[in-house]
Every structure is written in C-alpha cells, then in structure tokens.
C-alpha cells in the first residue's frame, strides 16, 4: 500500500490517521504541494486532478479522502471506524461530512489563493473568511456532540471513528489559523483524547518526515 501525502494536507492527515488506527503498513510518498509537485506528469497520471491524497492498494488507485476512508472501512474492517447500527453510522458520517463538505472545501489552499489573487482579499480578510467557515461548522458539530448521549470519550462512543478522523485535522487547521475555539469545549476535549493516542499523534503534520 502506498499513500501519496503532504505533511500539511488536511485530507492526507485524515487518511494517515485511519491507516494508523487500522494498523495498516504502507509506504508514504511525499508530494510537495507548495512546490507544485502535484502537477508533475507522473502524479497527474495517478490522480488527474493533482490532488492529495492518493492511495494505491493493489489495483485500487483511490483519490478523495472520504472515498479512501470508505474503501479502507470496507476492505479492512478491523478495527471498525463506523458503528454497526444505521443511526450511529449516519451520525458519524454526518459529523465527518460537516468537516469534509462544509468546512474544509471552503478553506483549502486553492480557495484562499483565489480569494487573494482574483478577488483581491487581503490576508486579514482571508482570515476572516477562514474563521467564518470554521465557526459555522464547529458550531453545528459542537451542538451535535453536546446534545447527544451517543457522544462518549470520542465523537461517537468510547472508541475513535471516522468523525474523529476528520475532526482532528480540522482542529489542527483551525489552530494554525488562530481561530478561537473556546466556544467548542466538546470538540477540544475530544481532540485532546484523540491526540493522546499513537495513531493520531503519529499522523500529525509536524512529525511527518516531510514536515517543514
């Protein structure tokens, strides 16, 4: 198994965590996003969009981190990152998707670049944009976590799952952009619980071999 990753890619960070949680050995290949390595002919052959991460597992070449996470869940079911019951699965996916569809896509590098280059937004304005989407998403996540008996040590129960896999990289990003997270104590508590575990700690951007 080979994972094409960049230390600071939030989407790659999710997959690194999941691979660690499932105890899956892999080789990491480092694609330097800021240097444009994702646009090399070799990489575009693998992932025509030039996005990260890409997972290669035998004949499977998977892009889109959420699709990769689903693939890992179905192909390597132990330990499971989704609960067994339909309502639980829906809840975990809902939490993961608030990050994956409602926060991260609005805050990733290409969007921030467009805001700056095409719309002329200054750094402070781009930060304001960034904070807005984190706050919108985290407000919803915090409410969903706080108001449900299904929340345990982690987003859902007392073992980490897909929601935690997506949440932790988003908290990392929020901290990097200095979003005030005081209004999200449950998110912070869960984030801490996750980072205390090796599979999360070892996936962290700052300890990756390609970290700068």
């Amino acid at each position, binding site marked *: 198994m080979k994972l094409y990753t960049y230390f600071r890619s939030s989407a790659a960070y999710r997959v690194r965590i999941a691979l660690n949680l499932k105890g899956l050995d892999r080789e990491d290949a480092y694609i330097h996003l800021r240097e444009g390595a994702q646009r090399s002919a070799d990489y575009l052959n693998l992932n025509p969009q030039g996005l990260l991460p890409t997972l290669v597992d035998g*004949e*499977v070449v998977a892009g889109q981190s959420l699709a990769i996470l689903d693939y890992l869940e179905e192909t390597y079911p132990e330990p499971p990152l989704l609960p067994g019951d*339909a309502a639980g699965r829906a809840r975990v996916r809902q939490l993961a998707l608030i990050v994956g569809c409602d926060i991260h896509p609005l805050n990733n590098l290409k969007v921030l670049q467009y805001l700056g280059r095409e719309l002329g937004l200054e750094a402070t304005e781009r930060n304001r944009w960034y904070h807005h989407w984190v706050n919108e998403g985290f407000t919803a996540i915090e409410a969903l976590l706080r108001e449900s008996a299904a929340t345990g040590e982690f987003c859902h129960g007392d073992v980490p799952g897909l929601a935690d896999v997506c949440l932790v990289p988003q908290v990392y990003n929020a901290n990097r952009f200095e979003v005030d997270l005081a209004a999200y104590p449950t998110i912070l508590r869960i984030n801490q619980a996750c980072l205390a575990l090796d599979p999360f700690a070892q996936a962290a951007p700052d300890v990756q071999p390609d970290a700068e």
Partner: protein
Amino acid sequence: MMRLYTAPVSSAARRVEIACRLKGLEFERVLIDLAEEKAAAAGYRQVNPQVKVPSLEDGAVRLTQSLAILEYLEEAYPAVALLPDDAVGRARVRALALVVACEMHPLQNSWVVLYLSQDFGIDATAGDDWQRHWIVAGLEAIEARLVGDAVTGVYCHGDRPTLADCCLAPQVWNALRYAVPMVPYPTTRRVYDACLARPEFAEVLG
C-alpha cells in the same frame, strides 16, 4: 413513511430525492423555507442544527448531510443498488460523487456567494465568475475521470445509475442554469442527458 426535508433548487436535496426515486422508496416531501427557518428560534433547527437541507427522517433515524443520507439509503434499502459491488468501482463512484459534493457544490452554492457579497463587497459579476470557476474546475475533473475510462457506460459507471449520477445531475443542472458551456465536457453532457431521460431524474430536475 420516510420524511425528506427539501428546499427549492437545493442541489444536495435533489441528490437524495433522485436516489429515493431510483430505489422506488416512498417519502413525504416537506418543503422548508431556509431563510425563514434560519431566522426562527427553533422549529427546523431541531431537525437540522445547520438549518440546511436535506434532512431525512426514517422511523427513529434522523439524518442530515446528503452523502450520509445516500450511504444510509444504500445500506437500508439495498434492493436497487446505487453502488457497484467491487471495491475499485465503489471507490470510483464515491470519488465522482465527492468531486461534486466536496469541490464544486460547497463553493458555488448561494449562501457562499451571499457571504462574499455581503461581507466582502464582491459584486455580482465577480460572484458569477467565482461560481463558474469552481463549476468549471469540477467539470474538468469529472470529464477527465469519465472520458476514456472503459467503465463509464450510459451513466457515470456502467449502464445503471449510481450515487455518482445522483450527485452529478443536479450539479450539471446548476451549471446549465449559470450558463456554463458544456461543450468542453461531452462525456459529462452525454451522461447528464441520459439521466434526464429517466423519470427519476426528470421529475426532480424538471
């Protein structure tokens, strides 16, 4: 009976409506006025804390986020499958759906454009350019994934509709509405037209 909360022209809600129809599922359709509900103190917020659509209630299960709903429907009502059986195929279909749901729609939707306009003074022309930019980038990605791949059939994947088509069709409908030329994306256009030839899609996308 399942209850689906939707709003006019909601791309995300349409994905779920199409999927329900493809699976032959009966549901009660509840139309939500999002602007009104956002202002309301409670009400729909109890159903969906983000005050967005779609939401689905199926017995005791309450779901939000269209992709979570689609996966739930796939597991709960497997008779008409919207995902292939093989791992490679499932990853492909999901990736196509995610290009729409993670890269196109979140950026081009109306509340994002409203935020740009209200909070950053971005004018209508620049707002239109913004929408088209992300739609075009996504269509390029989808076309690249579809064209020349032997697995592309009548639809995105093979000759039966999948979750990819459920997501793609409402997005292409949006693209057409924003006058994005589809000429550079012939395979995508062909798949879209094949979808619209089916009542499950035509009844939703009108």
